[in-house]
């Protein structure tokens, strides 16, 4: 799998993401500056976390209008894989590649802690190495992760099986206690209709090494890598 990480000014988890991808694929991903315009030869486009353009406007709104974005739209339109994490998820919603929006956390404070996620379906290129309904741990680090969409959109996402992950308790309960940022229906991540574009708020890339407290995030990167090896 040839992966590229798109770097917008203010992005700050690009190195974390590069480490996770290199562990899975055995080679460093290509780093693509936001002023570039081509993603030729790339299988997986990753937009990592951070504060693109300082998030001084709506989170992700500036990045969604960067010179690289037409190439990302074209990649997605071709059926290419796009992964957006945290600020990357916000950018994908601002770019219209995923529905909904990420609002300020319900408590109006930045949240940095581990959360638990339930894998809603284990048959996608991203989740094939998890078990259905498996609970895994991932660090949260965001101020604006409160997923919002109109109820018709939420119904459609659920009806079409496009919810990727939900915030859960360690035991797997989906409740308000697990939903620290107040996301609609505990949604932590969603897919595009073809299951190729994935956006999520937590950071599986920060849990791929036992020394950092666990490898709960590793199956996601191994999974997408294996999908291209097949």
């Amino acid at each position, binding site marked *: 799998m040839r992966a590229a990480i798109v770097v917008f000014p203010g992005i700050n988890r690009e*190195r974390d993401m590069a480490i996770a991808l290199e562990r899975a694929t055995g080679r460093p991903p290509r780093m693509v500056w936001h002023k570039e315009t081509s993603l030729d030869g790339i299988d997986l486009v990753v937009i990592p976390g951070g*504060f693109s353009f300082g998030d001084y406007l709506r989170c992700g709104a500036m990045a969604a209008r960067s010179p690289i974005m037409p190439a990302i739209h074209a990649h997605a339109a071709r059926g290419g894989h796009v992964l957006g994490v945290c600020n990357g998820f916000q950018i994908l919603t601002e770019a219209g590649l995923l529905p909904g929006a990420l609002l300020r956390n319900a408590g109006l404070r930045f*949240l940095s802690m581990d959360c638990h996620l339930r894998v809603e379906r284990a048959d996608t290129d991203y989740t094939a190495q998890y078990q259905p309904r498996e609970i895994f741990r991932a660090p949260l680090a965001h101020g604006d992760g409160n997923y919002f969409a109109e109820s018709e959109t939420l119904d459609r996402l659920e009806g079409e099986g496009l919810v990727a992950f939900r915030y859960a308790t360690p035991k797997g309960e989906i409740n308000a206690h697990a939903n620290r940022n107040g996301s609609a229906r505990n949604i932590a991540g969603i897919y595009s209709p073809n299951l190729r574009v994935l956006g999520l708020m937590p950071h599986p890339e*920060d849990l791929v090494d036992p*020394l950092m407290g666990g490898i709960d995030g590793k199956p996601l990167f191994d999974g997408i890598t294996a999908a291209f090896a097949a």
Partner: protein
Amino acid sequence: MRDVNQALAAEFGLSADEYQRVLDIMGRTPSFTELGVFSVMWSEHCSYKSSRVWLKTLPTKALWVIHGPGENAGVVDIGDGLAAIFKMESHNHPSFIEPYQGAATGVGGILRDVFTMGARPIANLNALRFGDPKLPRTKRIVDGVVRGIGGYGNCVGVPTVGGEINFHPSYNGNPLVNAMTVGVADKDKIFLSAAAGIGNPVVYVGSKTGRDGIHGATMASTEFDADSESKRPTVQVGDPFTEKLLIEACLELMATDAIVAIQDMGAAGLTSSSVEMAGKGGVGIELNLDHVPQREPGMTAYEMMLSESQERMLMVLRPDREDVARAIFDKWDLDFAVIGHITDTGRIVVKHNGVIEADIALDPLAEQAPLYHRPTTETPKQPELGPVADPIGILPALHKLIGCPDLCSRAWVYDQYDSTVGGQTVKRPGGADAAVVRIDGLKRAIALTTDVTPRYVFADPEMGGKQAVAEAWRNLTAVGALPLAITDNMNFGNPTKPEIMGQFAASIRGMAEACVALDFPVVSGNVSLYNETEGRGILPTPAIGGLGVLEDAAQAVGLAVHAGQSLVLIGGISGHLGQSLWLREIAGREEGPPPPVDLAAERRTGDFVRAQILAGNIRACHDVSDGGLLVAIAEMIMPDRTGVALVDPPAGIAPHAWWFGEDQGCYVLAVHHPEALQAAATQAGIPSRLLGATGGVDLTLADGATISVEALCQEHARFFPEWMD
């Protein structure tokens, strides 16, 4: 523009003597801008005029020290060809006036001190002191400071991995915000600030200059009065996004050979950076302010020279590399302007709109800066405490202590700081006595901590200074790291009061003794004086930031115990209750001498504990500090909600003194083979004692008294969320 005279000099913070000295150096009445330059360069904040005579007595050398005090930050060799670059700096006064921006720009400023030397910042810490939690103002300040630290650090993408918080009424009008940054660089690629090369371009990069922060350094050099709120315009506003770009652009440029010298524009902005760079290089500098990127029209030379606008750097470049540098800053959409050049005159010459606004010889500006050997009086020794009865019993006291503001969980605070960005955080906040951050791509890791116990320093400044250094050394040791060096942040009251200067001098004496005994030199630091409001000073607070190294991050241990382990005390406990939190919170007294620090025993015990950790024998380790032994044990069992059954205290010591005394140089170790550990300790001549075994869900004393770990956890977690949300 006003006339320059003694009255104006006084407004600028210069004494009559100091103004006379300016007149003597200049040989004429200085211009308005020149007076501004003198006043900020000679402010307490920039000149260390009251503290320098004492700071010079601190030990600053060791085989592994590459650069000690005098550079932007301290530099130590950490092995594998790498250097750690670190410093702690205060932003106390601005954080009282405008907590969010004061704290945020404190983080930004210390980051620049570190990356200006060529290091990528890999960790932030902070040492915070606030006033009485019962005051509404304290709540507002805590909220703003925590948001400000998070807002800045989270955005620049440097993990905030550790720190400390205390509350005490002495900080009601003077909260302390001490921010520490650690970076890593190749040890043969350290960038310094001494300018060189006659004719070389002087380049300004980063944010535009505005009118914010003018005379901030002077504000930080006076006491507060009832009118301090009106000083808000002297607080700068931070822009972490620009800082992030500046980090990336500077590191990209540092990978080339373009830079001759580089320095951030911190306190006193363009004045101090240009004066210090030229002064250190023994050259002159000429600036043309017409070329300074400006945020608003009509700024005067005085305003530009004294502005403390954030996120700006000054560089001297090789003339043939100017285009390379410009291209990098263009890529990052940052301002890049040649604003002057290096001269051989030994003077700083500042031009604006075709007029020479300042022309000052650099040598006398530095060499004739005021230096005060202020009078000191020794702090009287506290009388011995004598026996104190236990009014409530052991477990009720533990329950109360574990929930008090100084000992309760800090999760509410660190849950707002991104501690994992970078993907190298091995021990996160709350997980170990020191934070552990691995070096990307290597096994090697650094360990970091901040420590001081201000109530000890107040009761006995010399012992308190010693204790602060020893505790930092101990916390690094407790994760298995080899302690290398410290940065110090000396926060004190008004230095013109002999009792305050006496606290300062005695603290330095104690610190120096501990630094020598523990091979733990001071490599950087910062002094913040005049922390007084309406005549009331803070507890003397020499905050210590310690750095250690682990050759293999996998050897680091945390403090959480699990079922099936034995707890062993290493070190001797006499039951010292003077100045303990038990005495304050349970008996309602702030009395007695602080616990003594025996540096020889400290070293022997710590070296033994570290060796045991590195040998792989230790499952968890925690030092005994605030709250004493039982609080330490509670802190070890709460993370995994594991119970513990404890054995009786030794005969001849009151149980509450045993469990809550704050004796120094002690560790609690969790092991599978307590006999082997105790035998090794005995062989090393170190006291040890089996404390109990883990398992179940309760903390149980030998007499059968029991409290559930769940109840402890709930009480521990209660304070901050209830107070703040």
